[in-house]
């Protein structure tokens, strides 16, 4: 098992506030890693640094041993690192098919002028990528809504559409930002199955959740952060028993005493 993604002492500040501080952890190939922490702990900020939305102020991010600190999102995507968003970001004026087809942007080899002239090679590639899009839609049980406007669908289905779009890029690692947010119990249970199904296809997963249940059930390895710092790391059993984690989630006893 080799390291796919490494964070080494990563930190970032916003207006003097240290949002993430000296954070280090490793995601190995084939793993499902959970990143958890109370609301406002800095989880999404970590994701934004990994995917190039924010540039870390300190430390290094490595991808298969190569430094990718501060690389732009489009460059990160070419590495095979894809993400979903906490607030689903589908293309609002497009169908489900078009949204998922967007995931194949980097798979398209055609040049712009070949497209404008509709050359046979370009038409062939379009047909092939359309077929691959339908494959993914079938795998995620979305074929029946392929032509529907993406944002007119129920929340849980929209999450699946975004997931399908992420998988369409044939990523090595996908980062799921609170995939259970807004889902009902049945959808949440189905999500667990989907996550395992994705791992079966050889995709490594980094998962952010503040819902402990989902993370505990699916993760091989869990990293807990609070106030931008790592407070614990390990498997589900050790995390559940860790006093620092319990304190972060439930509050310290003398805090409550002070409040009372």
């Amino acid at each position, binding site marked *: 098992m080799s390291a796919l993604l490494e964070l080494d002492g990563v930190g970032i500040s916003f207006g003097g506030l240290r949002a993430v501080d000296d954070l280090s952890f490793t995601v190995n190939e084939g793993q499902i890693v959970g990143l958890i922490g109370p609301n406002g702990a800095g989880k999404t900020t970590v994701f934004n640094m990994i995917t190039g939305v924010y540039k870390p102020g300190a430390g290094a991010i490595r991808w298969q041993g190569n430094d990718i600190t501060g690389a732009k999102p489009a460059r990160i995507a070419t590495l095979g690192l894809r993400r979903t968003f906490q607030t689903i970001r589908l293309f609002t004026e497009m169908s489900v098919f078009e949204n998922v087809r967007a995931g194949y*942007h980097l798979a398209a080899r055609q040049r712009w002028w070949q497209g404008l002239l509709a050359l046979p090679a370009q038409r062939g590639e379009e047909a092939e990528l359309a077929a691959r899009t*339908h494959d993914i839609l079938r795998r995620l049980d979305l074929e029946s809504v392929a032509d529907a406007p993406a944002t007119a669908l129920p929340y849980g289905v929209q999450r699946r559409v975004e997931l399908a779009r992420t998988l369409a890029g044939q990523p090595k690692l996908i980062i799921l930002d609170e995939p259970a947010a807004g889902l009902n119990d049945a959808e949440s249970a189905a999500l667990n199955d989907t996550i395992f199904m994705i791992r079966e296809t050889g995709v490594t997963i980094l998962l952010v959740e503040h819902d402990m249940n989902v993370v505990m059930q699916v993760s091989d390895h869990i990293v807990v952060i609070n106030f931008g710092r790592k407070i614990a790391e390990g498997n589900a059993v050790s995390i559940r028993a860790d006093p620092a984690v319990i304190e972060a989630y439930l509050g310290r006893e003398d805090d409550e005493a002070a409040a009372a």
Partner: protein
Amino acid sequence: MRRFKLDGLKLGALLWAAGLALPFALDSSWVSIAAFFAIYAITALSEDVILGRAGMFDMGHAVYFGIGAYVTAILNTTLNVPILLTLPLAMLLAAAAGALLSAPLIRLRGDYLLVATIGFNAIFVLAMQNNPGGITGGSDGITGIGVPSLFGLQLESQSAMFWLDWALLGLVLLVMRNLDTCEFGRALRYLKQDELAASTLGVDARKVKTLAFALGAALAGLAGTLFAVQLSTVSPSSFVFTESVTLFAIVIVGGQGSIPGVLLGTALMFVVPQIFRSLAEYRYFVFGIAMIAVMVLRPQGLLPRKRSAA
């Protein structure tokens, strides 16, 4: 859905073919209006590449139209370059201007980009009026632009010029249609709808947007050449800010990213005013009211773009 798309294409091809017969049905002043329609339709479609497809607020598009017209006018009148040879140069220079001017602005948010492109338009008109190097003819512009010749045939008559314009409009329409179904065209729509999501899918925003500006400018440059030929004269007044506003309005009122919408918008803005010429200045009043009504009642435009399936 698939069948409808095919029908739309067939209908378009039929209308275009029927348009070829216009010179037999109309007197020459109306043929000239039809020629201007073709020229402005190309210009509006070129604005649609930047505004409607890529969602960049280009409020200075008359600049690229003007560059095309001036390139043809200058090369033809001073160096006697045949018109049709000036055409690729007009497109190339307009494209280069589009890419260069947009390069520093591409990261700007919509409203800032809009103001910056207005600035370009103001500078362009001023520059042409000041007759740099004595080549643009100042406020009077350049006169005596020749007629195009094709295979030794002088395209002198209004009908011949119309056919040239109409043929090139046909080619531009094909390119616009292909833009809908190619990766570059789709990347523009991804960026327009959600730039962050697009970039995490690997869309290189800077590259794609610059390319969109260059393509839009190139097509506007093509229209500029045709415009110079049709009028046989160019002057700064044809490329002022209000022309850019009209092009912007055509795309918004007609329907962003919609070929039929942009064509309808062009017809409403340029052809219908000719029909109501007897109303004199009142027609602008009517159009002002109509534009407001469309934006209130149908903000997506008269013929909005359809979602396409597989």
